[in-house]
């Protein structure tokens, strides 16, 4: 199979990740709950993962919180910062993981930046709304549909200038874009463990400052005589038993990233996305391409996007079609009715993948007389 759906999850994982999961299942008990060897081993796995994440994202290990996915982290972040009736600024490229919690809380939404690949427009749009006054901002680092890399460092500076707390959704950027929690000054950055960080599904990280409200309440292995959640991190946000095998795998994924370097991974992905975008243009489909694009490319053909994705699947190529859980992004770009086919490269990005995809699309075009 040619796997080009890394925006959903990274399918190829280093062998070290699989070995780490198995090792943890065979050797680890509950971390932070006992003084015996297996509990201590589990606790060392957990701390090791926090340490690696803190090195990759430039933050204190105790401010690395384990979640079950990026959506979980975003829910904690959003519910910590934002109360009913608040004015909240989001980008025009948000995922439902941001939109739905905000709608559920009942906020007044402002949408900044709807033009793809245009940093000047993005920044002026964000500044306009920030100047008008908002209570918080939540924005994605990279659009999951179009691969647009937003100027998060500059947006973060604007938020700080206007004294607006903010959350960054790093679902598509963690592991392939530089992220420094310390430099960005975000209140929260949420990310999945199973995409660019190469861990197993069911893992995620939330980087956070001190001010936070738990989403789950329960045992933490600390301050057990108290009836309220501990007031310190990470315990405040980690009620219940952690996913130690998952965290062990995530830790191995982080180790791989620290060794290889996110810059190298990013350039490999973007190079293949560039080749793919050019090839798609030659085939005559509408490609959403421009400066500041990640290793993800979306396109619209004359065929139904789901039908085309199914044809590719039948030819052994995995891509994702539809709205990608991001209706706002599709409305911003005008593809809400058609949806798009999304091609997203990952750690194993290689020329053979682009070649096979383009060859397959060519075959479909020849056979169907349409694309």
């Amino acid at each position, binding site marked *: 199979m040619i796997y080009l759906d890394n925006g959903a999850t990274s399918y190829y994982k280093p062998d070290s990740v699989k070995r780490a999961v198995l090792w943890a299942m065979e050797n680890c008990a509950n*971390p*932070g709950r*006992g*003084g015996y060897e297996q509990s*201590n081993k589990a*606790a*060392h796995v*957990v*701390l090791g993962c*926090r340490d690696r994440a803190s090195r990759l994202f430039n933050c*204190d*290990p*105790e401010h690395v919180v384990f979640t079950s996915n990026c959506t979980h982290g975003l829910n904690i972040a959003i519910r910590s910062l934002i109360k009913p009736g608040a004015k909240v600024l989001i980008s025009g490229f948000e995922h439902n993981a941001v939109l739905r919690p905000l709608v559920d809380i009942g906020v007044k939404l402002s949408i900044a930046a709807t033009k793809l690949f245009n940093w000047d427009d993005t920044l002026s749009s964000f500044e306009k709304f920030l100047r008008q006054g908002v209570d918080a901002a939540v924005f994605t680092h990279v659009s999951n549909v179009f691969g647009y890399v937003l100027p998060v460092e500059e947006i973060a500076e604007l938020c700080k200038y206007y004294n607006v707390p903010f959350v960054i959704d790093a679902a598509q950027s963690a592991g392939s874009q530089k992220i420094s929690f310390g430099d960005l000054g975000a209140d929260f950055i949420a990310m999945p463990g199973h995409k660019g960080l190469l861990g197993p599904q069911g893992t995620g990280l939330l980087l956070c400052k001190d001010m936070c409200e738990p989403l789950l309440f329960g045992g*933490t*292995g*600390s*301050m*057990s*005589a*108290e009836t309220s959640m*501990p007031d*310190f991190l*990470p*315990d405040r946000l980690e009620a219940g038993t952690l996913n130690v095998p998952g965290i062990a795998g995530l830790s191995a994924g982080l180790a791989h990233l620290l060794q290889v370097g996110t810059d190298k991974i990013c350039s490999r992905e973007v190079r293949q996305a560039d080749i793919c975008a050019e090839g798609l243009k030659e085939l005559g489909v509408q490609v959403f391409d421009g400066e500041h694009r990640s290793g993800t490319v979306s396109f619209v053909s004359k065929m139904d996007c789901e039908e085309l994705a199914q044809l590719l699947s039948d030819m052994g190529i995995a891509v994702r079609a539809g709205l990608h859980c991001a209706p706002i992004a599709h409305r911003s770009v005008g593809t809400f009715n058609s949806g798009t086919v999304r091609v997203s490269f990952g750690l194993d990005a290689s020329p053979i993948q682009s070649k096979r995809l383009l060859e397959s699309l060519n075959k479909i075009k020849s056979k169907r007389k349409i694309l």
Partner: protein
Amino acid sequence: MKNTWITFRSVTPAQRGETVLRRNGLSCILRRTPRWMQEKGCGYSLQIRTINTEVCIRLFRENNIEFKKVYLIRDNGSAEEMTL
């Protein structure tokens, strides 16, 4: 044998303390905090050699590792909370 216990509010800072001490060539044992040492229940401690108490505390402070209390355990088993 006389030794010192340094208590922490949870396993995370205790482990970070353990890492820092070992990196500096100081031996320690990560243990569950005895119930009588805990005010708020469930925590972890590092058991260290009493002679190293001062340097351990200094290293924790230098590395922003928050600890709760320090107890001196005497040869006869009696304990005393140390004021720093």
